[in-house]
Each structure stands twice: as structure tokens, then as C-alpha cells.
């Protein structure tokens, strides 16, 4: 309504520029057309600045700290385990990440199917229970888990870390997989039933393959959440060292260049996985 109220002060279509094709005018025109793209380029530069820093400094000549540039070398990349404790911490993070991802993906996928395919009482409560861990600040989750473990005299270690990681990953798995199930065409399953497939066969041969990309995405998300988690892990890990914990502890006395190698390698590897998945997805358009 108010759109019509405001008189058309400026004719939006191809204004007959009174100033003629002056240089300034052309610059303004060009900015009007490309301004957003330039802005996006600057924003991406900002997004990638710290990552570029990490990558560049992974090629720094190793020393006690990795704050000043000493010269280019590839030895860090050839021997990423040379710095003490880096690789054992990474190994722990990988182990925890794999177990937590497996558990969270299975548990979360089951819930996603229940929510997407069934009507039942207690739906609202279930949704709330899944939403709350995502809405709770990490430090609160961490403090509450540690209080629990202390109260019940649970020894802190791998088991407590995995318990915590699975807990905060489940909700993300449910959201991701549920979205994928909701996007399925129900006719495909009906067709399978029409062709005399029973429910189990339909699920195994039609539903599961169609939902698989969503499950894979959820697993990748869980793994990266688990691998990079610091706040909760720091509270519930006891003596177990993980990669983020290693960085945090070494931040005071100097982070070895090898840690930067792990950081940037993880970055490029994840980027590669996502890009390959995207290419595969395009080649084989999902129905």
C-alpha cells in the first residue's frame, strides 16, 4: 500500500542521465552494477585472511614459536610429526571424531526417520529436547557435563569426551537428515510398493540410497564439529590431549609450525571432499 503512496520521484528504468557520459557518471554506473560483486570479493578476502595466514606460516622455518617469518621451507609438510605431541593429539582427535560421528549419525538418523515418517505423541517435547542443546552455550554444556562426571566420580578420558561429542552432534544430524527425508518424493516409495517390494526391501533399496547423501553430510558435519571442539572437550577430557587442546595449551609458549601444517591440511582436505561431493552430485542429478 505504501509502495503506491510514495510518488515515483525517480523513474527506475534507464534514467536519461542529464550529466551525459562523464567519467564520474560512468564510474557510478559501473559501481551500481558491480558493487555487490566487489563487496563479495572483499568479504571473501576477509574470510580467507586468517586461513591464508595459517597456510603461509605452515611453510615457515620451524623455531620455538611461529610468530615471525624466518624463511620458506617444506620440511614441516614432509615431517608434520617432528614437533612433540602434535601427532598424538591429532590421532586422539581423529579417534574421538570417528567414534563420536558413527554413534551420533546412527542415533540421529533413527530419530530423523521417526520424526519425518511418523505421527506420535510427544513430538513437541522431542523437538524441544533436540533444539535445546543447539541453543545452549557450549560453556554451559561443558560445565554441566563436568558437574555430572564429578558428582558421579566418573574418570575423565576418551569415554567422557565421546559421550559429550555424541550429545552435541545428535541434534545437528537430526536436522540435516530430516531435511533430506522431507525432500524425498513419496511417489518413489509408492512405486516400489506397487512393484511388490515389501517395506524392508523398499527401505533398503529405495529410501536409504536416496537419504544417503543427507546422512553422509550429517556425518561430515559431526566429524568436523567433534574434531574442532575445544570448549566442551577442555572441560571433560582429563589428561587426554586433543588437537584443539594442544593448540590452546601451546598458545602461551609458542605453537610449532607443524600444527599449522595440520590445520591447513585439514582445511584443504575438507574443502576437497566437499568439492568432490558437489561434482559427483552434479554428475548424477538426484531425483
Amino acid at each position: 500500500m505504501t509502495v503506491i503512496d510514495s510518488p515515483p520521484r525517480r523513474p527506475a528504468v534507464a534514467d536519461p542521465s542529464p550529466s551525459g557520459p562523464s567519467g564520474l557518471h560512468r564510474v557510478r554506473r559501473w559501481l551500481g552494477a558491480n558493487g555487490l560483486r566487489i563487496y563479495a570479493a572483499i568479504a571473501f578476502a576477509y574470510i580467507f585472511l586468517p586461513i591464508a595466514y595459517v597456510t603461509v606460516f605452515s611453510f615457515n622455518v620451524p623455531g620455538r614459536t611461529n610468530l615471525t617469518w624466518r624463511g620458506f621451507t617444506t620440511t614441516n609438510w614432509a615431517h608434520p610429526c617432528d614437533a612433540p605431541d602434535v601427532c598424538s593429539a591429532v590421532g586422539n582427535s581423529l579417534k574421538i571424531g570417528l567414534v563420536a560421528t558413527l554413534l551420533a549419525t546412527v542415533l540421529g538418523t533413527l530419530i530423523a526417520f521417526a520424526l519425518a515418517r511418523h505421527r506420535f505423541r510427544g513430538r513437541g517435547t522431542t523437538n524441544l529436547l533436540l533444539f535445546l542443546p543447539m541453543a545452549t552455550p557450549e560453556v554451559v554444556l561443558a560445565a554441566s557435563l563436568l558437574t555430572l562426571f564429578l558428582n558421579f566420580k566418573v574418570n575423565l578420558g576418551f569415554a567422557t569426551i565421546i559421550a559429550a561429542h555424541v550429545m552435541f552432534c545428535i541434534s545437528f544430524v537430526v536436522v540435516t537428515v530430516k531435511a533430506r527425508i522431507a525432500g524425498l518424493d513419496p511417489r518413489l516409495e509408492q512405486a516400489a510398493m506397487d512393484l511388490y517390494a515389501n517395506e524392508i526391501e523398499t527401505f533398503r533399496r529405495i529410501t536409504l540410497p536416496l537419504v544417503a547423501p543427507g546422512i553422509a553430510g550429517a556425518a561430515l558435519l559431526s566429524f568436523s564439529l567433534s574434531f574442532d571442539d575445544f570448549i566442551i572437550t577442555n572441560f571433560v577430557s582429563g589428561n587426554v590431549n586433543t588437537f584443539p587442546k594442544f593448540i590452546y595449551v601451546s598458545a602461551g609458549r609458542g605453537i610449532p609450525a607443524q600444527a599449522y601444517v595440520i590445520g591447513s591440511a585439514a582445511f584443504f582436505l575438507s574443502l576437497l571432499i566437499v568439492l568432490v561431493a558437489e561434482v559427483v552430485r552434479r554428475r548424477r542429478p538426484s531425483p
Partner: protein
Amino acid sequence: MAIASASHAPGTAPVVPPRSGLRSRTLTPYLLMLPGLLWLGVFFVVPLLTLLATSTQTPAPSGETGAFQQTLRFANYWDSLQAYEAQFIRSFGYAAIATVLALLISYPLAYAIAFKVGALRNLLLVLVVAPFFCSFLLRTLAWRQILADEGFVVRTLKSLHLMGDTTTLTASAVAVVAGITYNFLPFMTLPLYASLERIDPRLIEAGGDLYAGAFTTFRKVTFPLSMPGVVAGTLLTFIPAAGDYVNAELLGNPNTRMIGNVVQSRFFTIVDYPTAAVLSFLLMAAILILVTFYVRRAGTEELV
């Protein structure tokens, strides 16, 4: 069994063809959810209840560190609120500034990706989340180096006389807010993109057809339609930002401590679990109240 038959009585019963597996089918969703919800119960609900119980405890008379007894001292809440009022205000202040900054940075970016880049869309979306693939702590520490006195940002600002010769960004509130803004940026950009991308371009064209200028069209058509994304994005940024302590610790100084820092030090350095529990609860309560109000006002109910 009772639940199963009862839940079926009112609505859907006549539509479902009478099959032999009916009873087991109504139980199916519960069985599917059981393991996952049990996990959340044991490692999310029970810990929160334990934390709640701890929050009203007082030190045990024995005076041993780490020993507390339940005395239902609710005054703990008031005491902690008074003692850490500054940190609370700071947490929410920093989180609010960072959220606004993230919105200002992300909105044009999400808009450009949704409308201006064509086939590059998916690639650019991957690049938006790319920082998540690089360690959170390494990124934050990288900012510490980038903003350091000898770094190029500070040197450029100083040579342009945009910054005083004696001022510094190292260990400052500016650095903390910058770190928070950067670290939670994808949480803002993704929901914004998702809601912008869903807008039918014909609606925007219609704005132009009705003689609205580009700005008016944006104000009256595009922005209101993207509100769900704005709401989701601000919440997803604000919540982790208010609870964060890593940025304040790595990029700040003792005067930039946030509530998360206090919780952490109460747990590990001072071994004062009741206070840590109280502060966690106050933080969570404040966030939940803010979220509820905000969602009510912005009128978006579908967040999950």
C-alpha cells in the same frame, strides 16, 4: 501398549487400513528415538539438573577444596549476579555488537551470492563455510598475529593516520569483538542466504514495475521477505557469541573477560563449582529469555 492404542483412538484410526502390524507400527517411532533420546537424557538433561542442584550448594564445613554440600542457598544467584554484573553486561554487549557487525557484513554477501553470481553459487557457499574446516583456535590465533602491533593491519592504519601512534589492537576489546564477529560469521550468512534464495525474483521485479526505486523495493519487498533468515542468523550468532570465552581469552585482556571466562576459571582455577553453576544457569536463562522475546517480536516460530 496402552500408549499405543490410546494414541490412535482420536484422529487417524479410520484412515489407516487394518493391518496386523498396527500396534507395532505405533510403537516404531518411540523405538527409533529411544537410543538417541536416552543419550540426550543422560548427557544433556541429567547434567543440567546436576548443575541446577550444584548451584545452591555451599562449601562443606570441612573446608576441603572441591567439597560442597547442598544447603539450598538461593542467595548464590543474587551474590553471583552482583559480583559478575560487569562480565554479564560485557558478554551480552560484545555479542550484540558482533551480531550486528556480522549482519552488516553477511547481508550484502548473502544477497550477492543469492542474486548476482549465477552458477558460482554453490562454490561460493562452500567458501563461506570454509573457515569451519580450519581449526577455530588457529584462526583466532591468526587474528592475534594479524592485528599485532607489527602486523600489516596496524601498520597500514597508522600510516594512514587512522590510528594513533600509541594505540594498539593487541589484547583489546576491539580485537575480541572482531574475533567473535569473524568466528561466527557463517552462522549468519547461511540462514540469510537460505531465506534470500527462496524469494521469488518476480516479487522484486514487481516492486520495480510499481515504480519503486531499488532502495524502496529492497525496504518494502526483499528485506521483509528475508526476515526469517535475519532472525535465525542473529540467534545462531548471538547465542554462541554470548557464551564464548576463547576469543576473550586469546585476543583480550583481563578487562575484556566475559561470563564464559569466569565460568571456566571458577571451575579450574578457583574450584568453586556452585558459582560456576550459578553463572552458567544465569547465562542460559538470559539467553532463553532473549530468544523467546526476540522470536515473539520478529514473529518467526519455525527455527528448527
